[in-house]
């Protein structure tokens, strides 16, 4: 590995846009991707190029352009390299997952573009094998070029449900139905602001045409309340429709999605360089979940910030910032027709799993909240083990925070109040931590380092 000015973490649209822009300005850039190829979740490339999942033409064109731009630079790309943290000495820790070793890197700037997260509201059975996120189902299709086997129900809220259902249909594996919790999707008053974004409307119209032709129902106001395993290894779902009627259906897979969110908990916060630390900039969906178009523009924004700080060059243009602002308004317009609100989690049955990693239940948190001495988010984690597991609260602290807020009628605490932002930001193999790079780094730690 060569010396570098900037380390970019994440090979999705934001990271690639940032890396390309900085490399073009003459900075020495290294881009780390945790998986085997660039693209991120949105532009995940098929293992077999002959078996690509159909995506909107504009989307694949964006990726072709972006990856060609990066290829023309001398930016170094390291696949199977995952971000572990920024340590107290200001070193960036990256795990080389193939070699099973830790890299301890000194850089002038660190751009974190690790992508957003899917929200999945807890309900009984959401932890069972066969229950996946809609995005997870989509990534699997993009990689294998095949639709899922068996019968699949898509449920939750958002445009991603339509996109994935249309892709499944194109691969000959249409879902049984899409259960869309919102009743407002087709309300002309609410949908009117979307007329400002004809790109999104055209994309949605294309998906809906395909779904109608295939006879896939899109049931507004319906949701999956409960999932139970059957004796023969399938999943029985309890569905409540817009009129409150309850039905049951047995399927092979349930894919859930309740919107997207940023993913900055557990990452070092954005900050200017100190005598020890590099500049830290967050870019793309991990900073603010605004989708693929915004991610590219946000990556360029991050690059321009870094270029300005490292070279003293003035920020070039505000075009990228304007794109991010426009996409933010588009996401707000979409949020107005879909339902990304948090239901009353206090109504969930006690045995519902809340923290999937540690198997902690809604009942366990309810008991903690029932005491006169209200626990803080930190106490909920440390004493209740909610958010303590290996996903570091990424799939539960939003819900634990919501329960706390609903119980006490107070504002919902941020995820960082539960989990903080100490490294490692993800699990790392002990084997990697004990490798030679660490021994070098320890000898370079300044004395009196006791944090």
């Amino acid at each position: 590995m060569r010396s570098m000015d900037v380390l970019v973490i994440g090979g999705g649209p934001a990271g690639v846009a940032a890396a390309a822009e900085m490399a073009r300005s003459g900075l020495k850039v290294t881009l780390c991707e945790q998986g085997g190829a660039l693209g991120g979740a949105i532009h995940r490339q098929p293992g077999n190029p002959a078996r690509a999942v159909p995506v909107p033409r504009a989307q694949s064109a964006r990726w072709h352009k972006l990856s060609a731009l990066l290829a023309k630079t001398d930016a170094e790309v390291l696949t199977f390299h995952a971000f572990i943290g920024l340590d107290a000495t200001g070193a960036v820790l990256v795990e080389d997952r193939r070699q099973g070793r830790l890299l301890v890197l000194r850089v002038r700037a660190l751009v974190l573009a690790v992508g957003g997260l899917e929200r999945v509201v807890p309900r009984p059975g959401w932890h069972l094998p066969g229950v996946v996120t809609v995005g997870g189902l989509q990534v699997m299709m993009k990689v294998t070029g095949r639709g899922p086997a068996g019968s699949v129900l898509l449920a939750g809220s958002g445009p991603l449900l339509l996109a994935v259902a249309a892709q499944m249909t194109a691969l000959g594996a249409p879902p049984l139905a899409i259960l869309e919790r919102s009743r407002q999707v087709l309300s002309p008053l609410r949908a009117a602001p979307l007329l400002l974004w004809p790109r999104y409307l055209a994309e949605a119209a294309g998906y809906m045409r395909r779904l109608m032709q295939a006879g896939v129902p899109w049931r507004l106001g319906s949701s999956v309340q409960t999932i139970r395993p059957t004796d023969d290894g399938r999943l029985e779902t309890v569905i409540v429709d817009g009129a409150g009627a309850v039905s049951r259906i047995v399927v092979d897979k349930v894919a859930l999605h309740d919107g997207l969110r940023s993913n900055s908990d557990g990452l070092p916060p954005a900050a200017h360089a100190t005598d020890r630390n590099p500049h830290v900039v967050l870019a793309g969906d991990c900073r603010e979940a605004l989708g693929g178009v915004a991610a590219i523009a946000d990556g360029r924004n991050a690059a321009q910030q870094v270029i300005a700080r490292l070279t003293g060059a003035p920020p070039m243009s505000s075009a990228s910032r304007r794109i991010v602002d426009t996409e933010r308004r588009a996401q707000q317009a979409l949020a107005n027709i879909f339902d990304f609100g948090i239901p009353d989690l206090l109504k969930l049955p006690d045995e519902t799993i809340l923290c999937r990693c540690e198997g902690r239940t809604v009942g366990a948190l309810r008991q903690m909240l029932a005491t006169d001495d209200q626990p803080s988010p930190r106490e909920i984690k440390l004493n209740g083990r909610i958010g303590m597991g290996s996903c570091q609260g990424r799939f539960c602290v939003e819900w634990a925070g919501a329960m706390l807020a609903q119980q006490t009628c107070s504002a919902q605490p941020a995820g960082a109040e539960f989990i903080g932002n100490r490294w490692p930001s993800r699990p790392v193999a002990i084997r990697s931590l004990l490798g030679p790079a660490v021994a070098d780094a320890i000898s370079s730690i300044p004395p009196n380092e006791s944090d």
Partner: protein
Amino acid sequence: MTDRSESFFWNGQRISFEPADTIAAALERAGVTDFGAGQGPCNARYFCGIGACQACVVSVGGTPAEACLTPAQAGQQVRTLKPVRQ
């Protein structure tokens, strides 16, 4: 390896995979959705697909690793994680 369809072992059972498959993709193709005892009390299984949720962690040659990020390799021994508690 000259054989075009390569395979690894899932709890001793042969699972064939295609080029660039992750372990999760190969298991999905083979119809394996329940990955057995996981890190906590819930069984391991594919969920988020982006290496974030840690639900698909299995033992790859003795080291815990996310099945959704780890490329399948010929002859590899992939196993259910040993349960950390009963």
